[in-house]
C-alpha cells in the first residue's frame, strides 16, 4: 500500500487475496464465497465475478459491494450472515484500488466531487473536505471543539504510523504542524484530511468450527451493527450526532460488551472531526466531550484508548473504498500480538468503525482474541 505503480488495481485485489490465503494456510479452492468492492481505477460492472474469473475460483456466493468507507465492515456483516445461513462456508473479502497510480490525484479528487446531489448540492461547488468542514463547524459551534483538538487526532495517527513501516506518511507531526498547514476548507487544514493512495487488503471469514482447521489462530467476530441515516449531508437530521450511535449500540449489544471493555479502537478517520464525533456516538465519551477526550495522549499508544494504531486513513493509507480494510487487518494483528513497537499490551478486544458517504452509512465491528 501507499504508492504502488507496478501493480494494477486488479493485481492489488488478487495479491491481497493471495496474502490472506497464505496467512490462513488454505488454498483458493477452499473459497466458496467472494466479496469485492468496485474499483475507480478499473471500473467493471460485475467486479466480484471478474476477480473470481481472474483467480479461476467458482464461488456460490459472489457480491460486489457498492462503495464507501462503511462498506468493508458491512460486508463482514453480510459474510457472517451468509455463513450462518449456509449460503457458503468460507468467504474471501478482497478490496483494493489504485487511486494514485491508476488514477491521477486530480482525477481522484474530481471523482470524489461526484458525491453531492447533482441538482441540489454540486452547483454550490463543495469539494469533499467542505462536506466534513460543515460538520466540524457545527460541532465546534455546539460544543466548543477546537482546531487544536482536531489536530490531536492527526498527531496521534501520525505517531502510530511512525512505528509502522507499511505506512505512507511516517514523519511525526505536532499540533502546530497541523494548524500551520494550508487551509483547505475552513476550519479544516491539509493535515486534517486523509491521504490519497494505492493499496489493497483481504480477509477470510469462516465459521469458528472450520477455523480450527486453519494453521493460523483466528480472531472472532463478537458483534456487529449498522446504522444508516441519509445520503446527502443537506438531508441529515443532525450535523453533530451520527448513525454511528445506532451502529455502535447494536454491535455492543450483540457482543454483550461495553465501551470500557475495548482495548484498542480503529475508527474511520477520513477527516479529523469524524473521529471526535465517532468517539462520542460510539459511547467512548459523553456527547460533546470528544474534543477534550482526544487531548493529552488519551488516544495514543499507552493512553486510555489507543486508536488507529496503524496510522489510519490520515497517515497509513487511503485507497478509497478499501480504506477500512486496513482497520480490520490492524485489529486482527493487534489481537494476535503481531504489532511490534505499536502493539497494545494484552489487547483482547478491538473495536472497528467504518463510515461512508458524508457520515451517512455506519458499521461497527467488535473482534476478540477468544470466543465469548
Amino acid at each position: 500500500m501507499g504508492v504502488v505503480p507496478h501493480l494494477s488495481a486488479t493485481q492489488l485485489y488478487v495479491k491481497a487475496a493471495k496474502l490472506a490465503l497464505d496467512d490462513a494456510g488454505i488454498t483458493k479452492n477452499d473459497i466458496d464465497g467472494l466479496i469485492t468492492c468496485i474499483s475507480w481505477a478499473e471500473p467493471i460492472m460485475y467486479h466480484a465475478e471478474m476477480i473470481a474469473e481472474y483467480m479461476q475460483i467458482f464461488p456460490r456466493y459472489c457480491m460486489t459491494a457498492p462503495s464507501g468507507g462503511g462498506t468493508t465492515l458491512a460486508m463482514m456483516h453480510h459474510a457472517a450472515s451468509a455463513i450462518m445461513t449456509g449460503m457458503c462456508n468460507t468467504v474471501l473479502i478482497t478490496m483494493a484500488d489504485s487511486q494514485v497510480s491508476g488514477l491521477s490525484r486530480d482525477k481522484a479528487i474530481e471523482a470524489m466531487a461526484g458525491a453531492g446531489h447533482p441538482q441540489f448540492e454540486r452547483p454550490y461547488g463543495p469539494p469533499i473536505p467542505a462536506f466534513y468542514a460543515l460538520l466540524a463547524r457545527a460541532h465546534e459551534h455546539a460544543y466548543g471543539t477546537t482546531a487544536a483538538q482536531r489536530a490531536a487526532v492527526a498527531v496521534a495517527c501520525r505517531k502510530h504510523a511512525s512505528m509502522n513501516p507499511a505506512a505512507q506518511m511516517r514523519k511525526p507531526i505536532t499540533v502546530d504542524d497541523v494548524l500551520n498547514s494550508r487551509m483547505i476548507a475552513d476550519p479544516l487544514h491539509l493535515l486534517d484530511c486523509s491521504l490519497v493512495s494505492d493499496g489493497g487488503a483481504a480477509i477470510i471469514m469462516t465459521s469458528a468450527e472450520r477455523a480450527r482447521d486453519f494453521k493460523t489462530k483466528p480472531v472472532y467476530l463478537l458483534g456487529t451493527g449498522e446504522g444508516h441515516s441519509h445520503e446527502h449531508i443537506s438531508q441529515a437530521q443532525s450535523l453533530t450526532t451520527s448513525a454511528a450511535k445506532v451502529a455502535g449500540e447494536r454491535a455492543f449489544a450483540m457482543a454483550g460488551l461495553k465501551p470500557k471493555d475495548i482495548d484498542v479502537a480503529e475508527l474511520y478517520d477520513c477527516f479529523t472531526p469524524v473521529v471526535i464525533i465517532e468517539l462520542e456516538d460510539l459511547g467512548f465519551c459523553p456527547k460533546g466531550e470528544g474534543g477534550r477526550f482526544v487531548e493529552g495522549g488519551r488516544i495514543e499508544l499507552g493512553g486510555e484508548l489507543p486508536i488507529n494504531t496503524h496510522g489510519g486513513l490520515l497517515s497509513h493509507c487511503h485507497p478509497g473504498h478499501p480504506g477500512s480494510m486496513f482497520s480490520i487487518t490492524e485489529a486482527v494483528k493487534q489481537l494476535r500480538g503481531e504489532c511490534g513497537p505499536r502493539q497494545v499490551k494484552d489487547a483482547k478486544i478491538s473495536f472497528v468503525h467504518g463510515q461512508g458517504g458524508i457520515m451517512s452509512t455506519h458499521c461497527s465491528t467488535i473482534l476478540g482474541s477468544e470466543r465469548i
Partner: protein
Amino acid sequence: MAEQISKPIPSPTHETRPYWDGCKRHELRIQQCAACGQHQFYPRLYCSKCFSERVEWVRASGRAKVTTFTIVRRPVSPAFKDDLPYVVALVALEEGPSMMTNIVGCAPEQVAIGMPVAVTFEDWTDEISIAKFRPA
C-alpha cells in the same frame, strides 16, 4: 460566462422541474403536504413524514438561517477557481427544510452560524438559475 459553462449545470427531471421553473422566475419553491402540513425539500413523490401523495408546490418565504458553513480555499474543479474563496453553507428555511447553498453578498469571514439570510438568484443559463443566499 465561459467559466460557468463548465460548472455542473443541473438537469431538471420531471420531479424537480417545478423547482427549477421557480428559480428561473426567481421564486424559491418547495413542497408542502396537504395532509399533514409538512414542508419538504428536495422534491419527492410522497410526503417524507406521513407518506401522503398530496404534496403541493408552494412558494417559500426565502428567509433562512445559516446552520453551518465552510469557506472553500481549494476549488472542487477549475470551474470554481475564480470564485475562491467561496462559502458553502447549509441553511434552514423558515418553513423548516434544509438546503445547501452559497452565501454571497458579504465577505466570507462575516458569515456566522445563526445568521439570517435571504434568497437571491444567480442566472447561469436561460433555463437555469441557482438559488443562493445573502445576509438579510
